[in-house]
Structures are given as C-alpha cells and as structure tokens.
C-alpha cells in the first residue's frame, strides 16, 4: 500500500515538473517572439492569467520621472475596466500592494485582500472589479525596478512560488529588452526627423554659398552644431548696383532656434526688397521680431555694398565685429552697434567703409570664437584674429578658419553653430 501511494506521489510530482517545464518553454518562446512592448506584455499577462486560472492580470510600469507606478497593461473580462485602469490610475511608491512590492522588491501572495491593510480599495471602487486574492511580483531588470505584475483572483493554488519568481525574472528581462528596443527606435526616429529638418533648414539658406556681383564676391560657410541651428546668412540684391549681405545668430540652439531662423530669413527677404539703407531694414526687422516668444532675439549685421565703387554701408545689431583684411594689415572694424533685434525699440546706426581692390571683410558668428577644446577652454576672438593675421594671404581663408576650429575642438561635441562669411572686393 505504502509503495503504491509513494508511486502516485512520485507520478504527481513528475507530472508537475513536466507541466512546469512546459510552461517555462512556452513562456520562453513567447518572450523571444516579439520586441513590441505592448504585444509582449499582453502575451505574457494572458499566459500568466491562463496558467493560474486568474480573473485578471495587470502590469504597472515604474515611471522614474514622477516616481509613480502606472498601469500599462490590464487584462480583465471587461475591456472598459482595462481602459479605465490605464487612463486614470497611478500609484505612489508604497501605495497599495503594488506600491509595497515596488518599494520592497519582494513577491507577495495574498489569499484574502480584505485582511491586508496594504490593499488599496480605491482601484476596485473605480473599476467595479472585485479583488479577492492576488499575487504581486516585482519586475526587476538590469537597470533596476521596471514595474510590478499583478495576478488577480488566481483559482489555482498549487503553483510553485519559485517557478513564479523565475518567470517574473524572465518577464522583466524581456520587458527591459523591449523597452530598450522601443527607446532605440524612438531615438532613430528623432534622428531621422532631425536629418529631414536639417535638409529643410539648409533650403532656407542661399542655394549656393557663393555670390558674385560686379567687383564683389561673397562666400560663406555654415555648420550647425546639432543637425539644425540658429545661424543664418543671406545674399540679396536690393538695387541694380547693390549687393546686400546678411549674417545673423538666433539666441538658443536646436529646433526652436532653427524654426525661428526660418521665420527671420523669410521676414528679412520680404523687408529688404528695394531698400538701400541697411538701418531701415534693421529697424523694420526689429519691429517684426519684437513679439518673439520666450525672449528670443537675433544678433545680426546687414551690409549693403555698391558693387561698382565698393562703398559699404553697415548696420550692426549686437553682433560680433567684422575683421578687415587689407594688403598690409588686419584689424577689427570699429563700428557703432545697436542691441540685438527683437528686444527693445531703437534706431539702428549706419557705418560707412570703402572696400578697395583686394580688401576682404570677414563676418562671423560667436560660435567661431566660443568653440571649446577638450578642457572646456574657449578659443577666443583674439586667437581667431591672430590666425587671420598670419594667414591673410591665403585664398581659402574661411575654410582654414573652420579647420582651425575643428582641430581646436577635436574630440568634443560642437557647442554652437559656426558661420563665417568673406566679402572680397575684386
């Protein structure tokens, strides 16, 4: 008799082990079947519900930013209840059973929730669902707590708690992988969007970075710091003998600066038509930009040069100075300047300079001399000035300046947009 009963026990245990192995294999295949986070969590929870013959299952994901648990997946009989849980309910750390499990990172089995003080009745009140018993397990991945899985009203009682914790560890790893995959996809999407934005932004700048009219030749280099930037330049022809050259730098960086730059360049092209006075254009642009959001402003220089006699009229709005290159000397052009555009009402001045045969004028944005090296030191305006002095006879000077900055900022992330223009009188 004893032997018979031992045999039965042995067979029952064996069957249980076979069943456990079957579940583990099934769950493993589910886990490796998808990287879609929602699909994965739904599949896992469906399986858990089935294995334990439970009424409902849910996964709460830990949101690091607000330190709360949010319902991500809820599988119940009623779809409305699931939606309500997902949209309306969040738990603080330590709040309810799930909050306790998240805080203590321990699996919890509660046979009768009415007898457990930790149970948070409000969720049942809101959903109309009746929780009698539950199993709550922490989901812990390589990067720490991911969330909590809850199995509500499990009918099966002969489950193995150890197997359950092995399963939740597997779930946690799979969820973490899927989350990581989703993050990577999102990053890739943003990168692609930024690449599109960069192409679009470039289309706002002149088609070619070189402009020639009469005795005047202008060339420009523009390198945004992070795909898109707030630096801009433009060439216009306000009159038959005139060339208009504009350089500007929008405050801030990235997408907001790029969008504002696009607006400014359109405003500039509209305003500058047929106006031969750069200060008139600056005054008008200043008015248009005075309603800029979030205090955004623009430093700029607008130069209108007579392409026959080389007389240049320049208006400056808080922008770094121009550097004049003559045959025997290089110097900073002393000019009167107004504040940046878009801040206060003001009248901008005009400065007059005659560009003679062989003269070159360098215009730049502050990204050029604020470039940092790996120790965080800025290159400075004077280094740029000295470099220009030493290399004044070189033809491709603005490319050389870019090379100097690249060399100086080697192994660092470019901090600001760089724009350099050279106006030559032939």
């Amino acid at each position, binding site marked *: 008799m004893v032997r018979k009963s031992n045999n039965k026990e042995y067979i029952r245990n064996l069957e249980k082990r076979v069943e456990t192995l079957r579940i583990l294999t099934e769950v493993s295949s589910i886990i490796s079947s998808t990287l879609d986070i929602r699909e994965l969590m739904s599949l896992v929870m469906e399986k858990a519900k089935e294995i334990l013959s439970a009424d409902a299952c849910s996964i709460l994901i830990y949101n690091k930013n607000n330190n709360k648990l949010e319902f991500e997946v809820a599988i119940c009989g009623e779809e409305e209840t699931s939606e309500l849980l997902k949209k309306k309910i969040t738990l603080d750390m330590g709040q309810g059973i799930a909050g306790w499990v998240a805080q203590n990172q321990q699996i919890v089995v509660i046979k009768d929730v009415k007898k457990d003080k930790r149970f948070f009745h409000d969720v049942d009140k809101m959903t109309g669902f009746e929780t009698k018993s539950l199993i709550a397990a922490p989901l812990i991945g390589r990067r720490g707590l991911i969330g909590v899985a809850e199995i509500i009203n499990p009918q099966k009682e002969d489950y193995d708690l150890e197997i359950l914790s092995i399963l939740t560890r597997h779930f946690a790893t799979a969820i973490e992988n899927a989350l990581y995959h989703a993050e990577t996809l999102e990053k890739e999407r943003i990168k692609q969007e930024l690449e599109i934005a960069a192409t679009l932004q470039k289309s706002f700048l002149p088609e070619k970075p070189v402009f020639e009219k009469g005795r005047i030749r202008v060339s420009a280099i523009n390198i945004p710091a992070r795909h898109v930037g707030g630096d801009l330049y433009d060439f216009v022809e306000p009159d038959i003998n005139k060339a208009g050259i504009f350089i500007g*730098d*929008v*405050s*801030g*960086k*990235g997408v907001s600066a790029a969008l504002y730059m696009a607006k400014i360049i359109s405003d500039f092209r509209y305003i500058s038509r047929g106006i031969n006075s750069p200060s008139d254009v600056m005054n008008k642009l200043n008015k248009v930009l005075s309603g800029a959001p*979030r*205090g*955004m*402003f623009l*430093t700029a220089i607008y130069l209108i040069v007579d392409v026959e006699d080389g007389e240049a009229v320049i208006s400056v*709005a*808080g*922008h*770094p100075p121009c550097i004049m290159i003559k045959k025997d000397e290089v110097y900073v052009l002393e000019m009167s*300047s*107004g*504040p*940046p555009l878009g*801040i*206060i009402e003001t009248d901008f001045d005009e400065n007059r300079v005659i560009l003679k045969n062989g003269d070159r004028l360098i215009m730049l944005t*502050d990204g050029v001399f604020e470039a940092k090296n790996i120790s965080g030191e800025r290159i400075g305006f004077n280094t740029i000035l000295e470099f220009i002095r030493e290399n004044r006879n070189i033809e491709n000077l603005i490319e050389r300046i870019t090379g100097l900055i690249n060399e100086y900022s080697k192994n660092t992330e470019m901090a*600001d947009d760089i724009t350099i223009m050279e106006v030559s009188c032939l």
Partner: protein
Amino acid sequence: MKTEIIEIKGNKKLKITGDIDMHTSPELREILLSLIKNSRNQCVCVDFSDVTYIDSSGIATFVEGLKAIRTSGSRLFFYGLPENIMEIFRFSRLDRVFEIYRTFEDAFGI
C-alpha cells in the same frame, strides 16, 4: 546652476551661482518669471557675482523677464557682473538693454 532668493530691503534678490546655459535656463526661466509675477512693484535684482558663464539662451531668459517686468511697471536690474560676463553683455550691446550696476547699493544710488 544654483539659485537663491532673498528678500532684501523690500526687494527680491535672486542670487545665481554657476553656468546659465541651454541646460539650466529653463529652470531659471521658471524661477525668474514667477519672481516677477509676484514682485508687486518691488525691484527684482539679480546678483551675478558667482555666475561663471551665460550663453544666448540664458540672455533670452532675461530678455523675457525684462519684457514681463515692463508690463508690471517694476524694475529688473543686475549687479556684481564678473568681467567675463560683463564682456558678453558689452560685446552684444546688451549693456544698453539691461540696467547693470556694480553693486546692489549703486542700483539705488545709496
């Protein structure tokens, strides 16, 4: 960046320590705008003596503050600017836009 708000002689003083750049200016914006909103005819004085750097997004934050305080009829001024910060303001002619003083007392002609 660290900020500290001190009520001094009936005015609000905002002391800033560290870099004001595109990473820290959103936080500064919230503090400054709420300070201006609650200033009720008080001056808002910004102590720059421990500011190590300011970029254009930081300056834009103060431009926004300046525009906001004008509508409230109050005053926003800066003092104690280290030479490198003063140079940034001077270089971009922002010294004409903002009220800048050497010391807190100078601002009130004390």
